């Protein structure tokens, strides 16, 4: 039985995990670089495939940005846990007194930061490539994009941890993540479209509320079940 005064509190455990993840990323910069380049490629590919003119670009831009982020983060999220497998780091982490939820939350925060940086860099490029000139309330993007990114990263981190325990690791993550993420993607795309086109089709901000509700529900389930996943033998 550990001495209660010796066990650090939960927040400091999360911060310790977070510091470790950020340090690894700072040294290698694998995740951010690969995500950035991949997302850039997706944006370029889409703009060639659809030849966006000014009017249509507002309609589809939200979708392209979301899908680009989605594809980019899937590749990075697999790596997030795969590098813990090497040298049995994951087993060592499981033996620490912190428990699964702290480990999970730290990983989500770290990945959220990485994907956020990618979006910050990508955003301006995106606006230039698609000749965007938003007609709605632009400030709402500052709510929608983080909420959508959180939905993606939280579920993605959870299911990446789940799928690295299966036979074909890299294959499985998109197969489970995409169906679960679909409602959030829909809410995100529709809100971004409303903001860019300013068509006022969502006056009560319903889709943003749906997105927030989705985040709360799915993050709670993930936090509760993460220990089960990480200890599945």
């Amino acid at each position, binding site marked *: 039985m550990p001495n209660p005064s010796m066990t650090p509190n939960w927040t400091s455990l999360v911060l310790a995990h977070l510091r470790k993840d950020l340090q690894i990323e700072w040294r290698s910069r694998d995740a951010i670089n690969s995500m950035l380049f991949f997302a850039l490629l997706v944006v370029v590919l889409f703009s060639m495939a659809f030849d966006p003119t000014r009017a249509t670009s507002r309609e589809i831009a939200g979708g392209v940005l979301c899908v680009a982020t989605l594809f980019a983060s899937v590749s990075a999220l697999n790596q997030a846990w795969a590098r813990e497998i090497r040298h049995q780091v994951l087993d060592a982490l499981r033996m620490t007194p912190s428990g699964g939820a702290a480990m999970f939350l730290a990983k989500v925060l770290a990945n959220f930061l990485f994907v956020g940086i990618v979006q910050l860099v990508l955003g301006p490029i995106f606006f230039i490539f698609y000749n965007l000139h938003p007609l709605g309330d632009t400030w709402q993007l500052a709510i929608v994009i983080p909420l959508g990114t959180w939905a993606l990263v939280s579920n993605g981190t959870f299911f990446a941890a*789940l799928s690295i325990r*299966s*036979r074909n690791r890299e294959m499985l993550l998109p197969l*489970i993540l995409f*169906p679960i993420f679909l409602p959030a993607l829909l809410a995100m795309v529709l809100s971004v479209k409303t903001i860019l086109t300013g068509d006022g089709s969502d006056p009560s901000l319903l889709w943003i509320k749906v997105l927030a509700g989705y985040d709360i529900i799915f993050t709670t389930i993930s936090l509760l079940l993460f220990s*089960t996943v990480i200890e599945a033998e």
Partner: protein
Amino acid sequence: MKKLALAALALGIVAMMVWGFYQAIYVAPDDAAQGAAFHIFYYHVPHGMLCYLFFTINFVASVLVLAWKKSNPARALAADAWALSGAEVGVVFCTVVLITGPLWARPVWGIWWTWDARLTSTLVLWLIYVSYLLVRKFASGTEMQTLAAVLAVFGAADMPINYLANRIWRTQHPSPVFGGDPDAGFKDPRMLHAFGWNILAWAVWGLAILAFRVYIQRRQQSIETAEANAALFAD
């Protein structure tokens, strides 16, 4: 004796389906607004309701797998058989919903499919449970059972969204016949008869298939356990 009972059960199910079909197609009148296309309702809605039932069985069994996996592995294995069977039968019923829906929509709406909240969330429900079945193929042993059970909890979180979709949002999908507006419900008792017989017949049919599937899975599990033991204790 056992065979006789099974044959009687099968005969009873077929008889109920035939009677349900007769009620739905010949007895129940056409809808005032939708005409003959309305008869597909007697298949679409019962399957929709029953797919909730089977996904709920999957959810409850999955929670039991998680609860018993340390304390009582033998029971967890049995619960896993129920979870798998619930998901498989549920996917079949959900597929029927997704096929009959567009068949009805084409004459009534003029389009096969639209991306409204009800239709989208039903498709998502179907996709999640197909991915559940995929996870079961991609891993093995008790590890796979735990991972699948975790995924089932996420799938169950989509069920209330799907149920409430045409209650919260104003969807193109018709508003609910049961548990919706006070004005909703059947306007002709023959419609209620047809609906009642069909949901009964398909419920009994689905539960019978579920029971068979659980039985087969339990046999499969005992074969696998025996093989694993034989490999362990072989000289």
